[in-house]
């Protein structure tokens, strides 16, 4: 109920910190790109850069949605399951002959509904976010499998499945989708008062409530945004793989969370940005892309990813403490 003033748990980001952090992560990404450019011929080819932008896109969108939730000091473990589930939903709708636009809208609404259910569980039933989203994670995979009877649903809509492969102005359409999500997300989080309410709720929800902030609505909002981002990614995935399959995107929730944290979001809430998770997601994508190009054994790839997460977050902590 009181303001948490102990110095450890209330990192005191100065004004410029967010920008500085963004810059430094950007520096890290640039350094990675430079190093890979020097060590492999293939890295700086247009084809590979396109690949990279495509490969980071889905995690990036998930990470932005996840960041809204983490800023409120919550967590959304269900995003991977939502991606798999909504890929089934859209495939099912298309197969049933529902027009494309309606299928897309219905699928996104499904995301809204799932997010609202999470909000309901947290706000009305008083469940910890970890638990309610873990439960939907389990159940959604089950429902998706039931719909497909454990198998996959093919999507025969050419326009839909070609979309993820097209380019626009030389940039892959999947990356345009990141921009499409990131710009309103930025306006929402950093410029509108609803964004500020997310921070306030994450910092001290009692204080927010006493100030007349509708805390419940803010929590609903965060989880709906996260689930809707996930449903959107479900559409993109369905387009990319051309099928609906409920077991896809397993473990993506952890990648989204990791991207968000690498991007400077604090799991204790009230610290985060929109550009951070985007950079985090593309750093992770670069590590994978680079490892493939360098022909690093896929097991080593896991080990390196784990170590890099530690190193990146550690330096971020250092910088934060230093900039106090």
């Amino acid at each position, binding site marked *: 109920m009181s303001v948490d003033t102990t110095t450890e748990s209330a990192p005191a980001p100065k004004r410029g910190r967010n920008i500085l952090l963004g810059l430094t992560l950007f520096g890290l990404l640039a350094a990675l790109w430079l190093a890979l450019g020097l060590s492999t011929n293939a890295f700086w080819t247009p*084809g590979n850069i396109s*690949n990279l932008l495509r490969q980071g896109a889905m995690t990036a969108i998930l990470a932005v949605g996840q960041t809204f939730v983490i800023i409120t000091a919550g967590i959304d473990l269900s995003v991977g399951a939502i991606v798999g589930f909504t890929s089934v939903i859209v495939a099912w709708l298309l197969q049933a002959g529902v027009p494309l636009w309606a299928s897309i809208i219905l699928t996104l609404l499904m995301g809204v509904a799932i997010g609202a259910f999470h909000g309901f569980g947290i706000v009305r039933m008083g469940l910890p976010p970890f638990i309610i989203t873990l439960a939907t994670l389990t159940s959604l995979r089950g429902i998706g499998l039931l719909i497909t009877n454990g198998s996959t649903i093919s*999507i025969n809509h050419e326009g839909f499945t*070609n979309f993820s492969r097209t380019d626009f102005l030389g940039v892959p359409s999947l990356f345009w989708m990141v921009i499409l999500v990131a710009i309103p997300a930025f306006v929402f989080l950093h410029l509108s008062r609803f964004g500020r309410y997310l921070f306030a709720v994450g910092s001290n929800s009692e204080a927010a409530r006493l100030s007349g902030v509708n805390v419940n609505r803010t929590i609903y909002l965060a989880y709906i945004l996260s689930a809707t981002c996930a449903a959107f990614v479900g559409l993109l995935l369905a387009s990319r793989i051309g099928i609906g399959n409920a077991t896809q995107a397993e473990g993506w929730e952890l990648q989204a969370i990791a991207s968000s944290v690498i991007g400077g979001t604090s799991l204790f809430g009230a610290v985060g940005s929109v550009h951070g998770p985007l950079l985090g997601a593309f750093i992770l994508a670069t590590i994978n*892309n680079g490892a*493939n190009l360098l022909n690093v054994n896929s097991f080593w790839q896991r080990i390196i990813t784990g170590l890099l997460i530690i190193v990146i977050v550690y330096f971020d902590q250092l910088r934060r403490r230093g900039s106090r």
Partner: protein
Amino acid sequence: AQEVTIPIIVKDTTSFYWQIVLAGARAAGKDLGVNVPELGAQSESDINGQISILENAVAGGPAAVVISPTEFKALGKPVDEAAKSVPIIGIDSSADSKAFTSFLTTDNVQGGRIGADGLAAAVKAVTGKEEGEIAIITSLPGVGSLDQRREGFLDQVKTKYPGLKVVADKYADGQATTGLNMMTDLITANPNLVGVFASNLIMAQGVGQAIAENKLGDKIKVIGFDSDEKTVGFLKEGVLAGLVVQDPYRMGYDGVKTALAVSKGEKVEAFVDTGANLVTKDNMADPKIDALLNPKVN
């Protein structure tokens, strides 16, 4: 002269089966003087991951790519696209694409049928007739090759062995322990169970363990799929009645060999079936079978 690079992309690098494929490819690389990056997703259900790996591999400018698509439909377009810049050789499973230059596959539906035949024979050997309650345990839902094995198995049972009744058709979560727990519960719930088809390596291990724990090798006949030291041991002990074994080593080796030939502009066969065999205690000493069971990994 620059070294020729032919990457091989498998479905799941964390499985023994695919490691044998990679071992074959590695051997071919050594024999033929080709650089063979060993790539692959970390789970058979990670379709998107495999697409990304394919994209990355093509970006590296190889002479050809050998790939085993995780999912028939999903890999179709990516393979089409990749084939625009480089020849693609398919192994093990196919994809919804006409762009493959050559195919070395084993028919998983056929594998399922072989499993059904093996199970029926094993049941008959004990009870004298092809009758009784049987079950199938699939390691993970949503995996193309496992779906095909299940389909082949169920279809064969339905058409050829009407006396065999499938009382349980279960999906686990890819964990041996889950397979084990499921099997012990099946034993409890279905005292008349006479046979089980465990359609991949990890399930064969889990199910085998349950049979071993309950010492039911004589009563419940289990057919597994693929082999490793553990399951071959089970086969010897009579815990497992049979294993459907493919030739992953050859697929890897010949895949790279064919790819090299293609990249040099040579003509290759468009389709090769590397086959699947039923291994039982009786034929496991067979030299040909023995080579399948003990591939030269490493």
